[in-house]
């Protein structure tokens, strides 16, 4: 039996092969190439049942098709399409047609007629819908062919009467995407149908199927997006759709109304059931506000979002959104906000301790109470109280946008925003704090509001506190009590969360400089000075005291009378802080003390402030050292490097620039030192020890150049050339050192060749920059290139050595803005004495929290490194979602690192640090390879050969005490 079966299998197998062969050969003649169409044709002919055919088609769909054979494949598919009886196979063919027309480089106009023809005899609704989809794809591929589009639109209009919702859906979609947009085209067109696309689509707003209604609205929006001006008449139709039973219809209708309100903001519409008329944008605003209390949260989110962008709305409508008349037993009641305001204006502190404090006052006329308003009443009040946080966030965002454009509204919405600071979801709280910050230049906080705002400072979430500090930085406070309150609360925060130190100091700096006059009367109290008695000198290391001083000094900057109130030790502390925390303490004009800036006349523009001048002067000096002796040069470089580093510490805004140049000079210094070695003058074998110095110098220069290239943001191509040039020099040095120290010539061959290649690629990459590099190493090298290529390694080395010595030091131009990437690990703090215990072999999660500054694309480049005491290192790539972006140029990494190790006998420290990964291919100079669409071509790309990948540590390592315990059996 088995043998028999086997035989049959073989028989069948051979038969199949034969047939394929035959077919292939015949097709070959016609199509010049054994193309996919042929194979497909064979497969389809072979298929005995629809299921088979479907399988073949599915397999076929997985493989890409080359542009040349698309048309052939399409023809074959169409041929089968007409023969096929089974609807599912036809459906697949139809979808394949669409897929194939998408092929890049293929122009589908040749198959359009066929595609339209297939529609005629099709009975299955599903297939029809799919064919419409295909036509849509074809139409979108031919944007410059209005007549084709017209035809397609006509076809679609014809099928709009189909009984299936799917077909009508697709037809509307097609009309929306391809319908004529310009008026001129519509007039030229012969056909009646395509003339008024808007009317055709508008007719389907009343379709019996909600899906078709949605599609109709979407198509209308699509037309709008493509630039067609929608008619105002649609507005009334769209308004009716707002009461639709289905949420997706309502959601789309809200969008449509919004679009119309932006198109015709100033037209006048009548209010139903009255004789009055209002502006369309106001009416639309009212309607969308109404949708904020819709039954479906999807619609609510949509409505709340759109409200934010309706800026032309009249102010009284806008202010109604925050209005909610309270009543109790038909008597008017004041809201808590109103009561708070009243208490404030009457000069009384909020008591709120009486029962019936909120007792209702005057009677309300029953007729006048409107429980469901048609207008905008209380839309935001509802939105901010919604049960879904998505709606609340959308409402807060909308508030923000509206408040930014209307100061009076900003003032009014303040109470509500402050209320949102106590939302149960952190995201909402954070969002409302950010919103408040964005509108802060329009507002001044009342004391009671400030009180509520400050209460949030105790929040345990660092994000919230930091956002709040940012907010306080740009808040206007109205009274000196307010400032005092803020200071007290911030100091409370400081004692509770000492890690917030920096952020609080920064916050106080701005608070002080914004409100000098309010701080002035507080100074004696804050410094606890006494008119008669000397008070003890406060502890200079107390962060709270520093905080107070930061506030005062910043206020004193624009308040010259203030220093008179300082006691002696305050001046001393000023001098100390000015030096140690120069970014927080401004220069002050103090009596009896000569200010650095006082020497500079005010006529000098701020761009050339003294420190910047100093930077340039010192660089100038360095670049002119040619006439000095080597020792002098070295000393000058050393001094300048020291100066620059100090400057970077003092002037935070120049830190990047100073560090960058210092690094460059350091490289140069190393190079000079290495060349001064005696090694070069004496026979090689005698100076094995010294050569260690030279080779480490070369290595260090290489490292530094990578740092220069990848750690700074704002590096331009001019700098990149210099950096690469320095790297080239370092490589030359390496080559020379190896040549001097190794015996035998064989290894040198390879090295020389590699070096020459690099010179070559340098020349190719930076050809445009070469003229600027007169007299440099590479300039001379390129002159000698013909000689180098032909000569032996030993000669090459000799040439290199002399060129390296003779070459001039290149002037490093500085870009406008230069910032060094820095990272600071906040957590783990590295102070804990309690080891983190876990069972060996299992994992423990370590929370890492770090701030990154001036890192470009942190998701791709920042890594976490864990170093174990045994030298084992682990590199962790944080998830993209772990990075947050609190402000421009700043990032925050909050991630978990999983540690594991075999058992130890006692706890030990591991090191955690952040690394910046780089890849020299990614450098700004190299040209980017355009990504191609087909996966095949991507695979064909050669893997990058000369891309050097590496990492630069850019944060201080933090030690964590851990203890993997042996597992208990």
């Amino acid at each position, binding site marked *: 039996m088995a043998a028999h079966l086997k035989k049959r299998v073989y028989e069948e197998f051979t038969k199949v092969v034969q047939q394929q062969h035959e077919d292939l050969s015949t097709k070959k003649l016609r199509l010049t190439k054994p193309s996919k169409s042929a194979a497909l044709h064979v497969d389809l002919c072979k298929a005995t049942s629809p299921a088979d055919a479907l399988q073949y088609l599915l397999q076929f769909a997985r493989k890409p098709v080359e542009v040349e054979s698309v048309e052939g494949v399409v023809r074959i598919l169409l041929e089968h399409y007409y023969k096929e009886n089974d609807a599912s196979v036809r459906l697949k063919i139809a979808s394949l047609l669409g897929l194939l027309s998408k092929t890049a480089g293929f122009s589908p106009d040749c198959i359009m007629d066929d595609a339209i023809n297939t529609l005629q005899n099709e009975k299955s609704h599903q297939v029809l819908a799919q064919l419409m989809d295909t036509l849509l794809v074809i139409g979108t591929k031919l944007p410059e062919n209005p007549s084709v589009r017209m035809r397609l639109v006509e076809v679609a209009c014809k099928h709009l009467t189909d009984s299936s919702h799917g077909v009508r859906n697709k037809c509307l979609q097609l009309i929306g995407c391809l319908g004529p947009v310009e008026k001129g085209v519509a007039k030229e067109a012969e056909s009646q149908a395509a003339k008024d696309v808007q009317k055709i689509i508008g007719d389907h707003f009343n379709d019996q199927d909600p899906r078709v209604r949605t599609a109709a609205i979407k198509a209308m929006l699509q037309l709008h997006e493509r630039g067609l001006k929608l008619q105002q008449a649609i507005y009334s139709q769209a308004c009716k759709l707002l009461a639709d039973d289905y949420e997706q219809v309502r959601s789309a209708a809200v969008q449509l109304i919004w679009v119309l309100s932006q198109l015709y903001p100033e037209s006048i519409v009548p209010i139903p059931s009255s004789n009055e008329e209002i502006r369309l944008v106001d009416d639309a605003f009212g309607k969308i506000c109404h949708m904020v209390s819709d039954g479906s949260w999807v619609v609510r989110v949509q409505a709340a979002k759109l409200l934010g962008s309706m800026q032309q709305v009249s102010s009284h409508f806008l202010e109604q959104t925050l209005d909610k008349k309270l*009543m109790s037993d038909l008597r008017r009641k004041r809201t808590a906000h109103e009561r708070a305001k009243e208490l404030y204006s009457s000069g009384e502190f909020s008591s709120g301790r009486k029962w019936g404090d909120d007792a209702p006052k005057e009677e309300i006329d029953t007729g006048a109470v409107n429980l469901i308003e048609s207008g905008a009443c209380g839309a935001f009040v509802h939105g901010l109280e919604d*049960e879904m946080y998505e709606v609340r966030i959308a409402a807060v965002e909308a508030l923000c946008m509206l408040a930014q454009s209307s100061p009076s509204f900003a003032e009014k919405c303040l109470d509500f925003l402050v209320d949102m600071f*106590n939302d149960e979801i952190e995201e909402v709280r954070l969002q409302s704090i950010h919103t408040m910050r964005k509108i802060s230049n329009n507002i001044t906080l009342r004391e009671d509001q400030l009180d509520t705002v400050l209460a949030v400072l105790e929040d345990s979430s660092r994000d919230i506190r930091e956002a709040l500090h940012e907010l306080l930085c740009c808040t206007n406070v109205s009274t000196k009590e307010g400032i005092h309150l803020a200071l007290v609360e911030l100091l409370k925060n400081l004692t509770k969360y000492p890690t917030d130190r920096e952020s609080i100091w920064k916050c106080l700096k701005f608070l002080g400089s914004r409100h000098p006059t309010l701080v002035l009367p507080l100074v004696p109290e804050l410094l606890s000075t006494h008119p008669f008695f000397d008070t003890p000198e406060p502890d200079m290391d107390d962060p709270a005291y520093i905080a107070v001083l930061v506030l005062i000094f910043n206020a004193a900057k624009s308040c010259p009378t203030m220093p008179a109130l300082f006691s002696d030790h305050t001046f001393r502390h000023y001098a100390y802080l000015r030096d140690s925390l120069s970014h927080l303490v401004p220069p002050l004009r103090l009596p009896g003390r000569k200010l650095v800036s006082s020497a500079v006349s005010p006529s000098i523009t701020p761009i050339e402030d003294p420190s910047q001048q100093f930077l340039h002067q010192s660089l100038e000096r360095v670049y002119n050292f040619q006439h000095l002796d080597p020792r002098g040069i070295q000393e000058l470089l050393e001094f300048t490097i020291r100066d620059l580093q100090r400057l970077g510490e003092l002037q935070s805004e120049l830190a990047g620039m100073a560090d960058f140049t210092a690094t460059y000079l350091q490289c140069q210094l190393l190079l000079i030192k290495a060349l001064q070695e005696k090694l070069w003058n004496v026979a090689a074998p005698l100076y094995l020890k010294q050569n260690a110095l030279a080779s480490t110098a070369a290595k260090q220069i290489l490292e530094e150049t990578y740092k220069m290239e990848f750690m700074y943001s704002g590096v331009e191509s001019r700098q990149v050339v210099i950096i690469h040039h320095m790297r080239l020099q370092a490589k030359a040095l390496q080559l020379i050192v190896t040549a001097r120290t190794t015996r035998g010539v064989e290894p040198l061959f390879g090295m020389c060749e590699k070096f020459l290649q690099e010179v070559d690629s340098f020349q190719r990459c930076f050809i445009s920059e070469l003229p600027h590099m007169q007299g440099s190493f590479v300039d001379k090298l390129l002159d000698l290139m013909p000689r180098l290529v032909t000569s032996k390694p030993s000669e090459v080395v000799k040439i290199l050595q002399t060129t390296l010595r003779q070459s001039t030091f290149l002037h490093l131009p500085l870009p406008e803005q230069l910032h060094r990437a820095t990272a600071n690990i906040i957590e783990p703090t590295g102070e804990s004495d309690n080891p983190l215990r876990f069972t060996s072999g299992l994992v423990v999660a370590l929370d890492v929290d770090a701030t990154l500054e001036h890192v470009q694309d942190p998701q791709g480049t920042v890594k976490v490194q864990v170093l174990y005491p045994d030298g084992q290192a682990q590199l962790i790539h944080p998830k993209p979602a772990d990075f947050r972006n609190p402000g421009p140029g700043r990032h925050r990494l909050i991630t978990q690192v999983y540690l594991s190790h075999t058992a130890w006998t006692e706890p030990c420290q591991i090191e955690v640090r952040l690394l910046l990964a780089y890849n020299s291919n990614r450098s700004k100079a190299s040209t980017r390879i355009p990504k191609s669409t087909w996966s095949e071509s991507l695979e064909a790309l050669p893997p990058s050969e000369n891309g050097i990948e590496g990492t630069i540590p850019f944060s201080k390592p933090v030690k964590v005490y851990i203890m993997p315990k042996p597992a208990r059996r």
Partner: protein
Amino acid sequence: MPEIKVTPLGAGQDVGRSCILVSIAGKNVMLDCGMHMGYNDDRRFPDFSYITQNGRLTDFLDCVIISHFHLDHCGALPYFSEMVGYDGPIYMTHPTKAICPILLEDYRKITVDKKGETNFFTSQMIKDCMKKVVAVHLHQTVQVDEELEIKAYYAGHVLGAAMFQIKVGCESVVYTGDYNMTPDRHLGAAWVDKCRPDLLITESTYATTIRDSKRCRERDFLKKVHETVERGGKVLIPVFALGRAQELCILLETFWERMNLKAPIYFSTGLTEKANHYYKLFITWTNQKIRKTFVQRNMFEFKHIKAFDRAFADNPGPMVVFATPGMLHAGQSLQIFRKWAGNEKNMVIMPGYCVQGTVGHKILSGQRKLEMEGRQILEVKMQVEYMSFSAHADAKGIMQLIRQAEPRNVLLVHGEAKKMEFLRQKIEQEFHVSCFMPANGETTTILTNPCIPVDISLGLLKRETPVPDAKKPKLMHGSLLMKDNSFRLVSPEQALKELGLAEHQLRFTCRVHIQDPRKEHETGLRVYNHLKGILKDYSVQHLPDGSITVESILIQATAHSEDQGTKVLLVSWTYQDEELGSYLTSLLKKGLPQGTP
């Protein structure tokens, strides 16, 4: 006309002992079965003898629905089912079914053990009663019998509170129970779909109130507690065991968590612990925040809130204590109050309304010296705060629900008559629907306009409406067959076949006289041209025998037998073409236009 009859036995223009009878399409349903807190005599329970004097209740009621576990909605249930006698199904949601017996038992204990009443239901009766309960899920359609179906919607208010839709055929009633349209810290907002019921029965506790945002109140509450604790004072919050207590717990718990506070919070033991257990279980019934975060941590597993022990009250240092009962009239809360009242650093926060005569009411109205039992005078130095947290929909909320459900009629219960009157006016004015507010025992009859479903064959439907177009009414031709209690719309041919009747044709014939001296066939031609000119959309044909057809209408022109100058036009049509036929005659009667050849 079919009608829906509604009779409130309790809660008609009143708050307490909610019990509403609804008869809809021959089905009788009882909504809620509550007790009245204000009475201790027979009036505390609804008058069930209204339903039947001597027969068993089971024969008269198809089902009983309980909206939530508050005693004014379920307090009379064991009395009703065990003592009066009802064996039919009782429907309630799962959380209600879980918590309801605890409260009933508590109620029984207080009435029987404390007040010494006899002739009250026993624990066993509560158990027996709960055996008759069928639990339902949200949005689950439960088929009570073949025609009657009910469906629960989320109502906020308390854990497990639901609104119910009762539906027979296409007539329906929605009963809201108590509901809340604004979400709070532990529950979401009530929601109902656009079910367009014939009648919406809604509570109207706050018919004349529009409330301020919840956030201000919450913030005030938290601020007061926080300040007192920071000063080192103790905070007493008298609460009732269920509902608001949990909300306040969540509020304080999250605040403690957020602000990293260390002062202890205690919760009096007993009933509350049991109830918290159920809150932990029924996470799906809580609000978005709790539902989303419970995977990491169930919010009801309090970290900062611990069980209270009597001895803790004397501990030094700040603390917050939730203690029952809520009005400070007895029990633990009063004990603690007496201990702490003398210190001005302490604070008591009353989160709800207090009945006159209780200690709570006295201190709220500003009394500073209280006379306790044994002629003791207690001086109240501690701060007294009032904070209202209520979970009923306000006037705006009620209107919002009506807007969501789009009912054809509204009926108000569970509120005061005067306030209802205001809301009734508003509803009629805004929504143009009729609104009722019957008193207890008063029957309201609502006429309904039920739709009658008719089956139609697909072939006929397709033939009659080839193009699906808008939701406009459309004229259809067919025969309505009423057979075996069902309605069918079929084509005339099929109807004839099914009924075994022969087809008869009905033709209308009309003569129109026209003055035309020309010959017959010329007149015919003129008529033809005339019609052809006017009826562009119809097929007008001139037949060789001189007659004209417009669609299937036949027109023949003959000379008048006496007067050759008058031509008689014979117009004939079947009754299906009545419309076109009569139009044609009227057209022809106007005469032919002059000047046409």
